[in-house]
């Protein structure tokens, strides 16, 4: 009995909560963000001379300060949302697609190729349609290769899709040396600068509006697809339990390949939007790591497309605010990255408090005589 100390209850005990009510979860999330902001403020006070409130204000102004800034915010949100929607069917099926980056990049590459080679041969509306189809196809090819190997030989899809990213990047670098404009710049430059052939047109004088509308439509379609279609149902069953899927006679391999094709297609569309609707050029950095951020967005939103819109908005807001405080306040950009990390940490951590409750040792014990 040597190591049993005198009778003492543990200081903290953790117990599971009942089914959380949605508004309680929401309150916990809001409180988490509030705490996160306090922690950020503390950080700013420690490492700089700025008033944290000024820093927050700068972030907000950086996002909402001018009409142009608001459009940029919405555009970036839309593109992050688009690629997040793309990874969602695969992840819901527990297919670890880490290759959204490459799939979008290859979509972007084929879009750019169409613009360069067909720019003066086809009328712009036809060209845009061709670009869309080609980008979707190339995204699908990039995604389905690992899926086929997974279905046939049970290869590890995370590694395979990850490798495919590098292949895509190198392909882009290779093509850039072909398409260099002007020669020796090692960049492609703005494609079809004069004719604007293959550029997504501006709606109501807003060049990003069409992008945003397209992504909105994809969001709604994806929501319906996942929630109300038979395909969506099969995706959930395969993701939850492959054994159950086999038991009811779902052809698991077929569902895997079909779902990954959907993922690849939406990735391709993201690439298309990036080139045709946004940058009108291509670099190896066109997707810029969004393919990985998308995984976080998708999981944080628990695969709900509408929640994803909110999460994408939050992350884009933080990223843009980060850029702003780096330029205006000359704070190191890393500070902003740290703040982003803190806020995400609190949001993810709040899950724990939604599902569990913490009991402290009470001074008086019930049932004690």
């Amino acid at each position, binding site marked *: *009995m040597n190591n049993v100390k005198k009778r003492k209850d543990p200081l903290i005990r953790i117990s599971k909560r009942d089914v959380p009510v949605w508004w309680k979860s929401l309150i916990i999330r809001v409180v988490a963000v509030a705490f996160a902001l306090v922690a950020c403020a503390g950080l700013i006070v420690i490492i700089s001379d700025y008033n944290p409130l000024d820093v927050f204000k700068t972030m907000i102004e950086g996002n909402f300060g001018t009409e142009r800034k608001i459009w940029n915010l919405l555009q970036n949100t839309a593109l992050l949302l688009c690629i997040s929607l793309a990874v969602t069917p695969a992840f819901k099926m527990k297919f670890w697609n880490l290759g959204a980056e490459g799939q979008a990049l290859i979509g972007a590459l084929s879009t750019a190729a169409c613009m360069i080679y067909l720019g003066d041969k086809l009328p712009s509306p036809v060209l845009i349609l061709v670009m869309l189809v080609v980008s979707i196809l190339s995204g699908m090819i990039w995604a389905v290769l690992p899926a086929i190997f997974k279905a046939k030989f049970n290869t590890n899809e995370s590694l395979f899709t990850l490798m495919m990213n590098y292949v895509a990047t190198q392909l882009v670098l290779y093509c850039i040396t072909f398409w260099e404009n002007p020669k020796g710049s090692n960049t492609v430059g703005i494609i079809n600068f004069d004719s604007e052939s293959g550029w997504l047109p501006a709606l109501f004088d807003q060049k990003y509006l069409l992008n945003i509308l397209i992504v909105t439509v994809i969001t709604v379609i994806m929501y319906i697809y996942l929630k109300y279609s038979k395909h969506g149902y099969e995706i959930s069953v395969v993701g939850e339990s492959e054994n159950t899927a086999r038991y*009811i006679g779902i052809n698991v391999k077929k569902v895997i390949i079909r779902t990954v094709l959907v993922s690849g297609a939406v990735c391709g569309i993201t690439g298309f939007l990036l080139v045709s609707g946004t940058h009108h050029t291509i670099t190896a950095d066109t997707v810029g790591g969004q393919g990985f951020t998308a995984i976080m967005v998708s999981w944080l939103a628990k695969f709900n497309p509408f929640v994803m819109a909110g999460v994408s908005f939050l992350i884009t807001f933080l990223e843009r605010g980060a850029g702003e405080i780096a330029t205006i306040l000359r704070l190191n950009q890393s500070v902003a990255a740290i703040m982003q990390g803190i806020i995400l940490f609190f949001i993810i951590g709040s899950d724990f408090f939604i599902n569990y409750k913490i009991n402290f040792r009470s001074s008086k*014990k019930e049932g004690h005589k």
Partner: protein
Amino acid sequence: MSNKPVAIELKKITKTFGKVVANKDVDLTVYEGEILSILGENGSGKTTLMNMISGIYFPDSGQIFVKGKEVSIQSPNDAFSLKIGMIHQHFKLVDVFTAAENIALGVDDGKKFDLKRISADIEAINKKYGFNIDLKKKIYEMSVSEKQTVEIVKVLYRGADILILDEPTAVLTPQETQKLFAILRKMREDGKAVVIITHKLHEVMSISDRVSVLRKGEYIGTINTAEANESILTEMMVGKKISLDIDRSEPKDPVDRLVIKNINCSNREGVKILNDVSFTARSGEILGIAGISGSGQRELLEAIAGLQKLDSGSIIYHNSKTGKEDNLRDKTPIQIRELGIRLSFVPEDRLGMGLVGNMDIVDNMMLRSYKKGKSVFLQKKEPKTLAEKIIKDLEVVTPSASTPVRRLSGGNVQKVLVGREIAASPTVLMAAYPVRGLDINSSYLIYNLLNQQKEKGVAVIFVGEDLDVLIDLCDRILVIGGGQINGIVDARTTTKEEIGLMMVKSKGGNADE
């Protein structure tokens, strides 16, 4: 009894998990040199209570006294230093270690680690209680009963005076159970306090000195086994009188419905799992399958359901209406359904195979039928009606039809699954361990459902573990051992002992070959 010294005393122990009250104000006393049974249905809080003594959970309130001293047990290590040892239902052994290594694992007596010395100590224990284990044998080579012996020796080696066994007989044959009981009696003579958790009444009667009954987390009472009988105990357990008889009707003109001939199958490593299995399932009859778990029951049912590839053999389905015969071998579940064969299957792994835990009851109803119709969208109306019907007819306790099934209790999960499979009005119904983990009321409800199906002329195949139930419920019992059929007996004339012997026959048989 009261003249014996008290080993453990619990006072007003309460433990809650969220809204669920697992134990409420439970009092319990265990004396040295006795065997105490803790009896209760599944979910009555037996295991939770014992886990608080062995340091896995910590009570919300209440006091624990060990040998008269109040203690606070915060970890299994605390329990061990109080000489309390628990043998869990799911063994906690390292597969690639030998028996001796597993027993020595985690014991720090301050001396140099010397497997030889430890082995000698273990042998002394083995001798004292008559255990028969090979210390150099690796765990993965052992049978379930050997593994259990290792667990018991492990606890004794650590010097436990108070042993808690959580449903130790669930995985044993009748013969192995008798051996275990002999050992437990020896421990009692040695002055140890033995607590055994169980819900099998006849075991309670044969092994224990006293019985403490829990119901829905509350302590109902303790009686001396000598003064008890099965109906008193049941009433304490369930709270009302219930009849423990299963009505068994005579099969009505049975015809061969499923003829299995010489099927063989092996697993990925090429090890044979089914060895030349042949039998016939008839309509209007319940065919029981008995055997030690893992003898090939799962593969057999999965082969019939179209989930397991066979090396050879045939599974012929006789359609009594059309006279058509179909070979189901290597057909997928969908192909079988397309042949118009209504084959229902309640698999052993309910939430991992029969249902999807995170989906609600309605979505789970759809599993079998979601493909119906040409629309690309799901039709939720029919499954919703079905879900509500099953909830009503089978008295499923659930907040609503849109509750994820993983939130339901074991019995209710099973009602949902069985309800769905029966709703397809099957001609063949296979059920693997359908009452495992269910309380008495739910179990009898399932037996009745199977009986109803039988009377409707369904060929029912029932894989069970409780031999008493198999003998009372089935018409014929097929005994499987090591992937072979060791015999088919008439359930009306056979005995538990006969089946028990047949269950283990194959091992001897293999050695002779």
